[in-house]
């Protein structure tokens, strides 16, 4: 493995790992605060138990998220000192805002997790909402940095070079891609976590049909999915247009569009063959891409041929990741529509076995979509670390032997990932309190 590849692999893995815990830190606190609110309003003990159980899972996820996030802040420098040396002053402010948001998130999570008997129930519930709020805030702000890498803004350069002359920090924070990217990844977090939780509790319902605890949990998770999923479809559409406008090479790679053309078709599925500049096995919907991007079915869309070969992303992976994300999103939208219809018609949460099984089948797809979408945005920006400004290969550390930390961190994260799964499994299924809840009802 050459060092650049090792550095990219380590960074990619670290981010792919952290992102799952990051989104859990955004969405889980909201669900536990909602559960606690229901308990406060109705006095139904099941919801209190639910808030407590979810908070324990959140504690594990949050801790691993916190330490893997710390690792990332170091890895930025350990692996990409060239990038940090250049970009640090421009993107430092959103990072420090994120740091403050994270401070508050951790403070209120500490109060939430350990303060059950130390503050009033209402204040405790408020602490839960504050964790959720600051989780969203820190997630959103850190996306500003990634968006800046895609659409760099907020600085001027010395004429004829890329050397930074002046900096407008807030212009960098509110870079063109920030709103769409923040919206898409924020909603993605709620979708993904809601579906994951929904699936777990639907599995519980499959095992024990009348378990009130799993039913309550599934309702809240489904509610969150019901709100977030349709909005996410909308934000996906807005994002794709934005990418087309500001990062045309990424869009071309997402669609596997090699030739610039008017009335460009939309490719469903298919495998791009870069060497031959063609797609095999794709279903092409005529003019659909032009129409989706611009509202005009005959508009011209830039293909990869509009960019020098050395500036093109890896179409194969970007297209595949994009297709995977869209497929997952569609399946989730299908399930949430079906569930809403069944709920509306039956006037109660659908507990038909086939529906529960369908939910179980779909439940990991949100997490898959988050990872795939992140691959689209990161791989689609290559070979640039800062789009059109700095190449990834110019940002990497001169440190030799990077395969060593790469392998080590891979092993570490695999180990932590498996452990977290085992522990969460313990919490979901092996806690004796499930029985207690059923009896208390």
């Amino acid at each position, binding site marked *: 493995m050459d060092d650049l590849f090792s550095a990219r692999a380590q960074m990619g893995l670290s981010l792919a790992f952290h992102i799952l815990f990051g989104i859990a830190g955004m969405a889980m606190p909201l669900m536990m605060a909602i559960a606690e609110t229901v308990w406060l309003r109705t006095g139904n003990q099941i919801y209190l138990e639910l808030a407590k159980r979810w908070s*324990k899972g959140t504690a594990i996820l949050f801790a691993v998220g916190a330490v893997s996030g710390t690792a990332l802040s170091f890895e930025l420098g350990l692996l990409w000192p060239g990038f940090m040396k250049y970009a*640090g002053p421009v993107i430092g402010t959103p990072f420090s805002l994120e740091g403050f948001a994270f*401070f508050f998130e951790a403070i209120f999570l500490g109060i939430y997790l350990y303060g059950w008997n130390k503050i009033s129930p209402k204040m405790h519930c408020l602490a839960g909402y504050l964790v959720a709020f600051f989780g969203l805030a820190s997630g959103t702000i850190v996306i500003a940095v990634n968006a800046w890498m895609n659409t760099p803004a907020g600085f001027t350069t010395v004429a004829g070079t890329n050397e930074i002359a002046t900096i407008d920090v807030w212009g960098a924070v509110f870079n063109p891609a920030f709103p769409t990217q923040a919206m898409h990844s924020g909603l993605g977090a709620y979708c993904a976590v809601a579906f994951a939780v929904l699936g777990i509790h639907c599995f519980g319902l499959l095992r024990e049909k009348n378990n009130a605890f799993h039913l309550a949990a599934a309702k809240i998770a489904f509610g969150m999915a019901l709100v977030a999923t349709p909005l996410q479809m909308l934000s996906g559409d807005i994002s794709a247009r934005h990418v087309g406008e500001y990062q045309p090479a990424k869009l071309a790679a997402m669609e596997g569009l090699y030739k610039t053309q008017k009335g460009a078709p939309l490719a469903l599925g298919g495998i791009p063959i870069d060497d031959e500049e063609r797609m095999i096995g794709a279903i092409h919907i005529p003019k659909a891409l032009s129409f989706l991007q611009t509202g005009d079915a005959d508009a011209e869309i830039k293909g990869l041929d509009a960019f020098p070969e050395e500036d093109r992303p890896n179409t194969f992976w970007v297209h595949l990741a994009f297709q995977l994300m869209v497929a997952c999103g569609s399946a989730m939208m299908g399930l949430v529509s079906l569930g809403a219809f069944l709920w509306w018609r039956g006037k109660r949460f659908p507990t038909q076995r086939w529906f529960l099984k369908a939910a179980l089948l779909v439940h990991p797809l949100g997490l898959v979509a988050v990872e795939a979408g992140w691959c689209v945005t990161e791989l689609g920006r290559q070979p640039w670390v800062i789009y059109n400004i700095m190449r990834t290969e110019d940002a990497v550390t001169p440190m030799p032997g990077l395969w060593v930390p790469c392998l080590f961190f891979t092993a570490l994260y695999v180990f932590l990932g498996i452990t977290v799964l085992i522990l969460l499994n*313990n919490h979901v299924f092996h806690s004796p309190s499930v029985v207690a809840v059923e009896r208390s009802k």
Partner: protein
Amino acid sequence: MIGVDLFWWIMGTGLIIYVMTGGADYGGGVWDLLARGKEQARERRMIEAAIGPIWEVNHIWVIFIIVTMFSVFPKAFAAICIALHIPISLVVVGMILRGACFTFRGYGLQPGATAKRWGMIFAWASLITPIFLGMTLAATSSGEIRLVDGEVTSGYFSGWLSPFAVCTGVLTLVIFSLTAAVYLLHEVEPDMVQRFRDRAFKAQIVVLVLLAIVYGLAHRDAPIFAEQLDNSALIWPLRFFIVLAVGAVFWSLKNKHDDLARMAVVAQVAGVVLGWGLAMDRYLVIPDLTIDNAGAHQETLEAMAPVFIAGAVLLVPALFMLFRVFKSKSKEA
């Protein structure tokens, strides 16, 4: 006018707070590791209860320092990350294992033997991480990391393997353990208090011995650093302050004034870190990078200063509340 000096002090303040708070959480892990005898399970539970609600918050100070550094002094951050890639990576691994395994132990719902294994990893990581942290800091003081035209030329092993650096690492560990032992006087059950007083007393002796060794070694392994320390205008007031604090720690431990011991140990630790800062004397990496040539942009400084002020105004009451909820009535609880 907002200048780089302000951020030098902000980073220094962050470091002092991190050592006083996050450092003590590592120290807690050390005492977990050293717990022996019939009461060890109970002892570990008390330490865990003391660390649990606050360690994540305390830990964020290190992110705060890193972020400030790469925003304001990007050239220093890049150079440090290249030259000290190895010890920093080890610090990162230690931080990950410490935090993750602490939580796995507490929230695992597992049989005792499994939980114990997590506890062992947590405790060993708590022991090793501060050593590498201290070695990393010492390396920036050593004068051995060199840059030519902004590129690191001194390789990947400079500065952090000298006796000075290793002893600074051990000193860091023992200081963390000392603060933890003193803080725990307020957290453990009454029958355990004397045990921790004795431990703090012994740790304080080791701290003094190591301070003397590090001071001596600095003159050999980090001459510029040592010279700047001796010539600092504030060195005598600071020495006086530290001696006073050290004396107060000994006296209050001996006479069971636990509140005074806590204040004194905080003062002592702050004094030592401050002394390190004085000796660095506006250098980020001795001798080639100072706060004036580390790539600061005036626009960044001016944007970040209000963020830090607003953040601090909001953060202080929130932190106060957190510590009030968990640390005020711990003896009655």
